[in-house]
């Protein structure tokens, strides 16, 4: 099984785990392809957001970094630090919602 990563985390040398398809399920690019510079450009112009690649350590750490960075945007709404398991869980939920909502922002 591959790991799904954001197009921004896609790097040269990674290997596609699954074929890349458009929304009509038409295959744009077969699986097991080693990514080159032109591929990344192509995927971007196709508007592809996430890509499934075979798992490597580099890919992992990169995607984590993205989420952490996103979460830091939440900090301004939490003036406090979690003190117990339930509150940590509450923070995790906030993080999840932040990622899902795309917009986690104050009203004007």
């Amino acid at each position, binding site marked *: 099984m591959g790991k799904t990563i954001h197009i921004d985390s896609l790097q040269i040398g990674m290997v596609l785990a699954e074929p890349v398809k458009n929304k009509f399920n038409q295959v744009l690019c077969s699986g097991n392809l080693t990514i080159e510079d032109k591929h990344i450009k192509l995927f971007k112009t196709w508007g592809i957001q996430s890509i499934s690649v075979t798992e490597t350590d580099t890919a992992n750490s990169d995607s984590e970094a993205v989420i952490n960075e996103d979460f830091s945007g939440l900090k301004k709404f939490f003036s406090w630090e979690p003190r117990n398991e339930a*509150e940590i869980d*509450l923070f*995790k*939920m906030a993080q999840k919602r932040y990622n899902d909502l795309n917009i986690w922002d104050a009203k*004007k």
Partner: protein
Amino acid sequence: MTLSEKIINRINNIPTLPTIYETLSNALNDPKVSNQKIAQIISSDQSSAFKVLKVANSPFFGFRGGVDTISQAIMYLGTTEIRNIVFSLSIMKMFSKEKKIAGLSPIELWAHSIGVGILTRSIGKVIAEPKVENYFLAGILHDIGKILLLQFAHEEYNEVIEYAEKNNCLILQAEQQIFGFDHSRIGYLLAEKWRLPQVLKDVILYHSTGISNDSSRNIVAAVHIADISARVLKFGFAGDNLIPEPNIKVWEQINLPQSFFTTNYDKFIDDYNQTVQTILVD
């Protein structure tokens, strides 16, 4: 006359308790009244009865399309829960027509309250509270004071919202700053006037601190946590974007299962989206 006196004076003209609630409560307290009779009372207003049925059929209350009539709804959910749903709907109908002021509209506030209702009831269920039929209603009513202020003091309330925005503080603090009292006190006045049960009065008065006395300790703590969680999940809008820190003592009262929030996350969103659509869209 001070500003706060003026506002309280104005709020003295608050509407009376929806008659349906009183009629139903009296019927429920009379052992001679059958469930069939209660179903008849609810069904007498067909459009609201239909809405009650829609709510009872929503996945949140656990019956996906299985309830066809009010009598069945009473059978599955019990008379108290059904009365509370009827009550919730009639209160929202009473106030929701108000226009949007500044950054806050009653609709957004109701959406927040529905979110709190859903979370409160969900918490009530996992802390093994035997009687959760008041929990949803508690969420609906907890910010009733804000609704009243929006309606009866909307110009002044504009100021409150602006103050909260500017100072990046809770709406509660802004209210205290500008009025000298907050929405929980106004809500309590209404609850007194309507002679609501003591637990609901406690919820309205104490939800921001989360601490109450014996009989209402669980429900007040549940609303406190649910209010904060609804802000985390961006359910509706309560007037400010802050997420207050939970009262640490409340966690002694509310012992949630491990990963309660993350495990039920999908369900919360799903229940919220559906219930808001069901209740608020005519």
